[in-house]
């Protein structure tokens, strides 16, 4: 899959409400077809002329601040995430980029996301950072705060930025400067097995207006839990769970109240987490999850593919993991319901982001690559490999699938309930400590003690940060 082919017909068919489950399955199979090597037979976008590789024009013109980019032969080093869909998708995109800008060669170095940050650190410490870095959105703040990244504002026209969903820009902004560009977005949903829920006589809601609260979901999940099947698999730990915990707060409450603090997660000046991360509402919410672990509704040890293999009836996941589900388990009948919440309908959104090293010797070319790979046509191209909500409004609006259930729920939840993760300059440390607290709670530790200790540990690191970054 090195060069894109001109699409020959529609691939994603609009699916009206009430269409059969088999049709839905077919639709999902098709939408991730490229990821798994299935045949992609047509355009994923309707109403938009698909990008043609034969077009003479480039997708981003190197003019203005980018003038001269690619005039001389340059090799860019791109630190990327390994695995599917990045391996096949990014390789194909790089081939296309190099076709459009023949003098710029992109050397891709891919590794698992867990190793990315250590790799960045060691390369930065060795004064040999990659030119373009593909990192998780909330981690942009951590790297920007340490001057590892190049501010992109001078290189990206304001008009172009307006096309991105605001949360994509918020996530990549630190200190008023933009440090990254995203190509996709995400919002979690509760995926469930139809056989398990049908057998229990439970019909989960299909709209945001009728979404379950967590106590309601708890009762339903209890009913679908069996000795050989958990009710819920929470695969990705801290990032999705943290959003659920924030939903226990209330953004409309007075700013000094614990309800507001539980929702905010961090003080407006970014200096305090004690009282926020361990607010009584958060502790109470976490208690419900511990009850689910204690009652064997949720497994405390990871089970690969728990929901599609029938070891769990439901799964809190997101579009980025949906592709694997559809491709690997085409016969499993499933559906989605909005992410349950406690007090305020709320989910974390966000995605991986293309950033440029502050120490790159090829700033113009690196920015050109970051802008190119997040341009409208590139998002359309990328969607073939990773059928996930594009980060640009115009691109997202042109995907028919988002007009129909179940993908419509992704878009609605993202637009109406979604917000980026907390803006903290020590995000990687915060995320490590939160995972640790969650593990301890799942092992039966006292919830209040764990959340208080967690908040205190983050606060100590945050205090250290602000002492050295006055």
């Amino acid at each position: 899959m090195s060069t894109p082919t001109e699409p020959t017909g529609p691939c994603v068919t609009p699916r009206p409400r009430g269409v059969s489950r088999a049709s839905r399955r077919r639709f999902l199979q098709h939408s991730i077809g490229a990821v798994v090597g299935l045949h992609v037979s047509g355009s994923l976008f309707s109403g938009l002329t698909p990008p043609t590789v034969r077009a003479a024009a480039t997708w981003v013109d190197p003019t203005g601040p980018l003038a001269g980019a690619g005039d001389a032969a340059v090799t860019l080093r791109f630190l990327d995430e390994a695995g599917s869909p990045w391996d096949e998708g990014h390789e194909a995109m790089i081939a296309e980029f190099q076709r459009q800008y023949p003098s710029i060669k992109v050397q891709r170095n891919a590794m698992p996301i867990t190793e990315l940050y250590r790799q960045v650190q060691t390369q930065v410490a060795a004064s040999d950072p990659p030119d373009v870095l593909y990192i998780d959105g909330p981690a942009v703040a951590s790297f920007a705060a340490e001057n590892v990244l190049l501010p992109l504002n001078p290189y990206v026209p304001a008009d172009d930025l307006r096309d991105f969903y605001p949360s994509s820009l918020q996530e990549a902004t630190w200190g008023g400067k933009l440090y990254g560009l995203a190509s996709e977005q995400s919002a979690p949903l509760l995926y469930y097995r139809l056989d398990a829920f049908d057998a229990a006589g439970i019909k989960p809601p299909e709209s945001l207006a009728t979404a379950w609260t967590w106590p309601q979901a708890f009762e339903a999940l209890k009913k679908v839990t069996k000795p050989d099947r958990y009710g819920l698999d929470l695969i990705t730990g801290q990032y999705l769970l943290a959003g659920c915990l924030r939903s226990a707060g209330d953004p409309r409450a007075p700013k000094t109240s614990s309800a507001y603090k539980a929702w905010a997660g961090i003080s407006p000046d970014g200096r305090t987490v004690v009282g926020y991360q361990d607010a009584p509402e958060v502790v109470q919410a976490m208690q419900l999850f511990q009850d689910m672990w204690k009652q064997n509704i949720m497994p405390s040890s990871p089970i690969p593919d728990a929901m599609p293999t029938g070891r769990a009836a439901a799964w809190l996941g997101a579009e980025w993991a949906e592709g694997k589900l559809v491709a690997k388990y085409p016969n499993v009948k499933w559906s989605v319901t909005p992410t349950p919440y406690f007090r305020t309908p709320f989910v974390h959104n966000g995605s991986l982001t293309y950033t440029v090293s502050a120490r790159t010797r090829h700033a113009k070319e690196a920015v050109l690559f970051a802008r190119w790979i997040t341009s409208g046509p590139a998002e359309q191209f990328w969607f073939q490999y990773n059928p996930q909500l594009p980060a640009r409004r115009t691109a997202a609006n042109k995907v028919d699938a988002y007009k129909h259930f179940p993908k419509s729920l992704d878009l609605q939840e993202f637009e109406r309930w979604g917000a980026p993760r907390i803006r903290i300059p020590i995000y990687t440390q915060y995320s490590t400590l939160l995972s640790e607290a969650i593990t301890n709670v799942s092992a039966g530790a006292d919830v209040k003690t764990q959340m208080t200790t967690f908040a205190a540990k983050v606060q100590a690191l945050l205090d250290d940060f602000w002492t050295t970054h006055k």
Partner: protein
Amino acid sequence: MPIEPQRRRGALPSPSTRRALLTAGTFLAVPLAGLLIFRVGTVGQALVNSLYQYNLLSGTRVFVGVGNYVRAAQDAGFLLSLLVTCQYAVMKIGVQLPLALGIALLMQKSWRWAGVVRTAVYLPVVTPFVVVATLWALMYNPTIGIIAALLRTARVPPLNFLVDPRLALPSLTAVTIWKDLGFSALIFLAGLQGIPQGYYEAAQVDGAGPWRQFWNVTLPLLKRFTLFALVIATINAFQVYTPVYVMTQGGPLDRTKVATYYMYERAFLFYQMGYASALAIIVLLMILGLSALYFRLLRTE
């Protein structure tokens, strides 16, 4: 090799000796340079880093003198990690070395399955630790693991080996024992094969049975090998990292957070390279101290 005539004090070595020295020096220079740069040099660099508040990402370095060492002495997390490391080391060495000696005794005898036992015991040693840890994590899984399946067959409720705070460290230790057993057994086997048969024959003549022969001949003559196995096992125990990283990430409730993992967290997750270097130096000194103690306790004539 020609035998050199005795040389007068202060006289230059003969040309052939000089050539031999030059050849030996050339061959030794490469590994010696590697040793100096990648072993001694890095320890030296860690020592220097330990005197700074050093952020690997931003590159900022602020001299704090012994501040990191003072901080370590007051850091409850680090002290707990040392305690966990000691618990781990005691459990591991206490089980691994006697077991390895028993296996070495089995392997020493020429019997039908000796070759199979040797291969089976040594195979985990040459298997990468990441692979071993990943496999054991799956085997320990209370839902899909083979151990849970066996327990269910025996009508025992599955245990949550890596999540239960009481079981996590022993479960992790069992994996590392399984992995390292072959190496210790090999050391003991080398020792056993070096004991002259005559001692056993003399002991038999004196009326000593197998148990008495073991206590009065085998064990005393294995002292040097026991010391070596003990030192290596202790160093390994204090350096354990991979299974913790793969299987538990130090949890639950810090019950498996050994000193090296704590260092890793400080250095690479919390960006405190200076402080992590100070912790590394402290652990290094502890290992050196323990090794010196072993040598003293097991000193042989």
